[in-house]
């Protein structure tokens, strides 16, 4: 009995739906505003190169995480649903990205070699 209780989830809002304090939504709303302002500032200030790309990706991931976790209630769903929905996109899209990066590299090298339209 005692060793099974460790695996048992505390009773949550199973059938009454997702009920969370309004304050939490307002907090996330505010955070999304601030993060959007930050990512806009990256462009406005004119940060370039690797700093620009990493900042854009950082703010993008933070915003996406907040929307999915709080607004879409993924933080409170059972792990079976969370994994079924959130695991496939990054894995498959990243594999596809790797394929297309190598494809695009091949295309541009071919174009440069045969059409000689270097920028």
């Amino acid at each position: 009995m005692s060793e099974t209780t460790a695996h048992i989830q505390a009773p949550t809002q199973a059938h009454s739906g997702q009920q969370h304090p309004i304050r939490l939504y307002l907090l996330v709303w505010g955070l999304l505003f601030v993060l959007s302002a930050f990512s806009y500032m990256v462009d406005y200030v004119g940060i370039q190169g690797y700093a620009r790309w990493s900042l854009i990706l950082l703010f993008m991931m933070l915003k996406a995480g907040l929307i999915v976790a709080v607004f879409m209630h993924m933080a409170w769903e059972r792990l079976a649903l969370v994994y079924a929905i959130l695991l496939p996109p990054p894995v498959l899209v990243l594999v596809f990205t790797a394929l297309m990066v190598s494809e695009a590299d091949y295309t541009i090298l071919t174009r440069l070699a045969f059409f000689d339209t270097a920028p």
Partner: protein
Amino acid sequence: MAQFIQSHSAPDLRPAGLRGVAADFSSDQRAFKTASWGKAMMWIFLLSDTFVFGCFLLAYMTARMSTPVAWPNPSEVFALHIGGQDVPLILIAIMTFVLISSSGTMAMAVNFGYRKERARTAALMLVTALLGATFVGMQAFEWTKLISEGVRPWENPWGAAQFGSTFFMITGFHGTHVTIGVIFLLIVARKVWRGDFDEERRGFFTSRKGHYEAVEIMGLYWHFVDLVWVFIFAFFYLW
């Protein structure tokens, strides 16, 4: 071991963590124990939509990486002339804030829906729809501006020809999603306003009893549209 006996009336007694994932997927009848049929189906639809937009953004990446012609600078292309100077990307920034605000009002509508506050839920959904319509209007303005400046799917005055086709494809598809969302919002808001979910009135299409969960499922779609914009904003407009 009585805790592990599954029944729909006591879903809270299921194991948590990875053990729970294994138990849910190997269990009888259904894997998503706490998500209703409607919610699970909306999530699976959104998963497929993720791949649609993922493919669009990947096509954009491939086009941009493989062209020897310089890519037009979005910071300048989407600048607006305000007060005697060019403000970079300002329209897109405002559109982003409008869409985020609509997500905020939608999240609150879901919350008030579960509290069965009919009027507030409907009002917040109407505000969400209004903000969504504003977004689409601003996008129409942006399209008009770019088309009048000579952007076509096959050419533009500033650089790589693929810029136009990618722009119209990605923002067009996203704008279509927002438009469908606005229509969907108005339909659900009307049902909330009429009290369909209080009296469990059956839907005209599925004939299933109406519940306030419909507002949350609607919200999932709307937040997804906002989520996609986060990625478009980062990769297309800022990169």
